[in-house]
């Protein structure tokens, strides 16, 4: 079922409209979205608030029915229960049964996914260890901090060793240490051959770990490309890209004017810069073209 030629996630002209009131108003949250997430890659689904990221994820997971188009996970339609057998999902700002301990919660989800006996027990301890929750595992989830909730959410998402891991805003509200730990974990997952899909609007955190990103705005796909190719846009214009003679001449010119050679710093076209440009461009096009 996994690997082979089938992509981890494939969306074909996926569309989702929400009814708003009883009048003839519908909100189009996802608009003709087509993309593929290949096996083994870390894929970022980015966009401003309200761009349709979470709706797309819910459509992929079969929690919502598309108004049009198709969604598949490893070649299986998202509407089927089987499609979710190899998926681990961490929702945004996760909530769990507060009265269960961390261990009970992860064990519950592990049993739901078909684990049992010794395998369940060892797997629970393993993921709790990855999440750094071994010591707090016997405390009730209701006593956990936000960061701990995020980590126990990760543990329940990974307990059944899924091939596809979907993380919805995994670093929202998490401190820099937590975000760095999350990034490390994502790299480990990739190293083990897992496919990871991350949604986020915090691009700086995401660009270090993603192989490819797609940028959404108002339900539409604006851009889908490899992160490396996006970063190269700015590299050509940085001082580091000049040869040795040109760099020396630049340094002499700066010194003659009393400036330090390090005063010139290329304005790197970071992902957030690209993001902002693309979104603004899309909105101005929509604004000029609207009836």
């Amino acid at each position, binding site marked *: 079922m996994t690997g082979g030629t089938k992509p981890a996630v494939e969306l074909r002209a996926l569309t989702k409209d929400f009814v708003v009131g009883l009048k003839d108003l519908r*909100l189009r949250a996802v608009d003709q979205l087509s993309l593929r997430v290949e096996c083994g890659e870390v894929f970022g689904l980015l966009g401003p608030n309200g761009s349709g990221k979470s709706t797309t994820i819910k459509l992929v997971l079969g929690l919502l029915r598309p108004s049009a188009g198709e969604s598949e996970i490893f070649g299986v339609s998202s509407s089927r229960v089987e499609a979710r057998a190899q998926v681990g999902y961490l929702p945004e700002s996760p909530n769990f049964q507060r009265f269960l301990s961390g261990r009970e919660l992860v064990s519950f989800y592990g049993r739901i996914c078909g684990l049992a006996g010794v395998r369940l027990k060892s797997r629970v301890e393993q993921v709790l260890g990855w999440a750094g929750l071994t010591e707090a595992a016997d405390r009730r989830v209701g006593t956990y901090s936000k960061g701990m909730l995020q980590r126990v959410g990760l543990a329940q998402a990974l307990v059944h060793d899924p091939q596809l891991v979907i993380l919805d805003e995994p670093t929202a509200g998490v401190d820099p240490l937590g975000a760095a730990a999350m990034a490390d974990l994502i790299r480990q997952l990739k190293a083990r051959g897992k496919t990871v899909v991350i949604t986020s609007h915090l691009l700086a955190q995401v660009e270090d770990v993603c192989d490819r990103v797609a940028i959404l705005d108002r339900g539409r796909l604006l851009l889908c490309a490899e992160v490396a190719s996006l970063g190269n846009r700015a590299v050509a214009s940085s001082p580091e890209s000049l040869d040795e003679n040109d760099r020396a001449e630049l340094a002499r010119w700066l010194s003659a004017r009393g400036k330090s050679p390090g005063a010139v710093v290329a304005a790197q076209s970071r992902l957030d810069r690209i993001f902002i440009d693309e979104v603004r461009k899309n909105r101005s096009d929509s604004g000029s073209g609207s009836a």
Partner: protein
Amino acid sequence: MRRWPLGSRFGCFAIVKSRWRLFATVVAGLALGGAILTGLVVPQQTNREESGARLRESPGAGALFGWLGGFRALAADLLWLRMYAGWERRDLPGTQTLIRAVVAVDPRPAYFWINGARILAYDQPVWRIEAEGGFEAVPTERRRVIEVEQARLALRLLEEARGLRASTAAMWTEQANIELNKLGDIAAAAASFRRAWEQPAGPYYAARIYGELLRRLDRHREAYEWLCSLYPKLPPDDEAADAPLVLARIRELERMLAVPPAAAFRSGR
């Protein structure tokens, strides 16, 4: 937001239609499934019409509350407690009203019918007579009228009971006692005692008293034959059956009817 024109696939009619389709499917599913279940499993209710009629007769909101399924037994009990409080105050109209309310709310327990009839037949004549001046002051004829009126109220109540629930030996016995003690109608009382004996688990004394009343009506031969057919059915070691008394009655009737010894009843014990 995008607007979609009326009548298009995404127009308001589509939205309203899908909601109504959901309700229609649920209603149709429940109705169809319910029709099958009700027809297959539950016997027809035979007294729904009577139930509706009694609801209209019952006073007060207590009746409506009382019809709420299992709560009606509780509501009837609570109304009975209210009636009891009125009984202690000798509130004649209030007691009568609440007795009727109780049996309207929950006609199932024989207890309410029997005790309601007792209150009407035995207690309320005393209240009325004392309200009119007491036993010394009220003339005998007037007392008799009051007792007959109340006795007929009680008998009407017991008759209504038979229309709403299965008769019991206790209800027939109560009727017989009222007919005998309050109306002095021996023939009616005899018939009621016989009906009591014929009910499931009918008491032995009812059969015995029926025989006794036949004697009082000078139907001696009938009484003799009745008691002779009854005696073999009486368990010898049951005090309530009082077999020796019945045998003594048989012997008295043999003397009265001059039954020859050869034809006398053989007890076989």
